[in-house]
């Protein structure tokens, strides 16, 4: 599948944004983090910024973005429509929670309830994003039990990494959250390795034989219907990554998982403000690594239409 940057950035940025939002909502709701004005402003601003940037980026993928409002109508059948609806609904408790925290300086009572609702909505929105991909039968690497949990884990992982950087930035760093970020990153690493292992051993029942209805023997593409690449090959016949796949997987593991864990381990031994600096660096490096991971998620996915072209 063609890794369109608008979609790669969209899923990575909103994943981190909703992850951060969910953690702010839950930790705020339980009043584990202090209702500090600047922490609220920067934390909620950062998560909403990531979400808004991602949503705007996703409209760049559309052929007719001026009609995007129509995408809220088909939530009964379409995961993409559900994602749109869920993302808009999430803004309601997020708005209430933000007003409570930033303007009234409180995260208890109704503000706390709004925080829990906000966290729930954020998780639901990430689920709908994951299901867009997990529900597509022609792409076996996406239509697997690894896709939806992957989106949730990576959302929580990147979100906690940003929250850790924020707390250290305001000198209220918590060892608990730092350890949680490390554990989530290790979980993400393991999940990604398991996903790659599963995909590499995948035996897809759909072959050139079933695609053409020609039973038995071998079916070899002799001649394409066209001499140049068409929409199908440009959009769904993307192949470059398979050549560089191994190297990009190493880069993903280094940036998204290994370096952030190493940096956070160092943070434990350092005094403030170095802790803030390294925590921020860990979050940024991981985000860059997740962009590579998401690029590979698309580039390594094989659509059944490629069978018609002998690919």
């Amino acid at each position, binding site marked *: 599948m063609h890794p369109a940057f608008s979609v790669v950035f969209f899923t990575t940025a909103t994943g981190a944004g909703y992850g951060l939002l969910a953690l702010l909502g839950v930790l705020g709701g339980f009043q584990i983090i202090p209702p500090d004005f600047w922490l609220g402003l920067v934390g909620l601003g950062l998560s909403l910024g990531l979400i808004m940037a991602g949503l705007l980026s996703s409209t760049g993928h559309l052929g007719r973005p001026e009609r995007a409002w129509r995408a809220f109508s088909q939530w009964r059948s379409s*995961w993409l429509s559900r994602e749109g609806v869920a993302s808009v609904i999430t803004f309601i408790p997020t708005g209430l929670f933000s007003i409570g925290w930033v303007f009234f300086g409180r995260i208890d009572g109704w503000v706390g309830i709004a925080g829990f609702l906000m966290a729930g909505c954020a998780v639901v929105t990430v689920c709908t994003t994951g299901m867009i991909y997990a529900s597509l039968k022609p792409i076996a690497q996406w239509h697997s039990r690894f896709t939806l949990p992957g989106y949730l884990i990576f959302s929580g992982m990147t979100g906690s990494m940003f929250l850790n950087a924020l707390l250290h930035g305001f000198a209220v760093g918590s060892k608990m959250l730092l350890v949680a970020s490390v554990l989530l990153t290790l979980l993400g690493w393991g999940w990604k390795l398991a996903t790659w292992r599963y995909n590499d051993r995948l035996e897809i029942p759909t072959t050139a034989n079933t695609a053409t209805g020609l039973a038995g023997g071998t079916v070899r593409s002799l001649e394409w219907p066209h001499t140049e690449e068409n929409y199908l090959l440009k959009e769904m016949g993307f192949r470059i990554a398979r050549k560089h796949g191994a190297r990009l997987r190493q880069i993903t593991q280094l940036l998204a998982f290994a370096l952030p864990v190493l940096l956070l381990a160092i943070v434990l031994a350092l005094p403030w403000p170095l802790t803030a600096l390294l925590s921020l660096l860990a979050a940024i490096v991981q985000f860059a690594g997740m962009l590579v991971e998401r690029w590979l998620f698309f580039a390594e996915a094989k659509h059944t239409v490629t069978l018609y072209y002998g690919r």
Partner: protein
Amino acid sequence: MTCLPSQSGKKLGLVIDLDACVGCQACVTACKEWNTGGHMAPLTDIDPYGGHVDGVWFNRVHAYEHTTEMGGRTVNFPRSCLHCETPACVTVCPTGASYKRASDGIVLIDEDKCIGCKLCSWACPYGAREFDTDVGVMKKCTLCVDRIYNDNLAEEDRVPACVAACPTGARHFGDLGDPSSAVSQLVAERGGVDLMPELGYHPTNKYLPPRAHSKRAASVAAPALEPVRAEGGFLGWVDRMLSN
């Protein structure tokens, strides 16, 4: 609404005979010619005379080499929308632009509602949908919905353009929901198959696999020429003069 309708039982579609198709591309050009002015017009061409030709086509003919223990053969393979009974391209559509008609099962796109998110083309395993980068919307085969019900055409012309154009009779159009229809009987007789049945899209269009190889030589050799009977009269005299 992109939820699938409860069907009336009528399932219009094509039956494609892979034994008869010679890969002449007549169906491809006939489709392009009709549909670039039809229901989903235009079928945009990008850089048509340049080095990177691209454009929207509803029907494309591949050629494959099918090799079995019986030997190898070339199979020409037309590929277009199969108007599936459970088309995921319709249910994934976020705007309601894609829909399946309850009355005859044809899968269509309302181009005025399409936002060009391309998700339907990802959901189609057969590559039936092509994005028009110029107009910014998705396009697909309409089963020539503007021909098959067109009272302005003679009755024999009320078939999809690809079917009308096929010089070898490899394409058949009809109601596959009616077991007594000519196309349904053809499918039963020739063992017509679904493409990628394992994905569960239940395509309406069926493909007739090539018939088994025959060890016999072709049985349709032309009869030997007979000697010309001697003509009398003036023409006979001319013949004799010219033959000398």
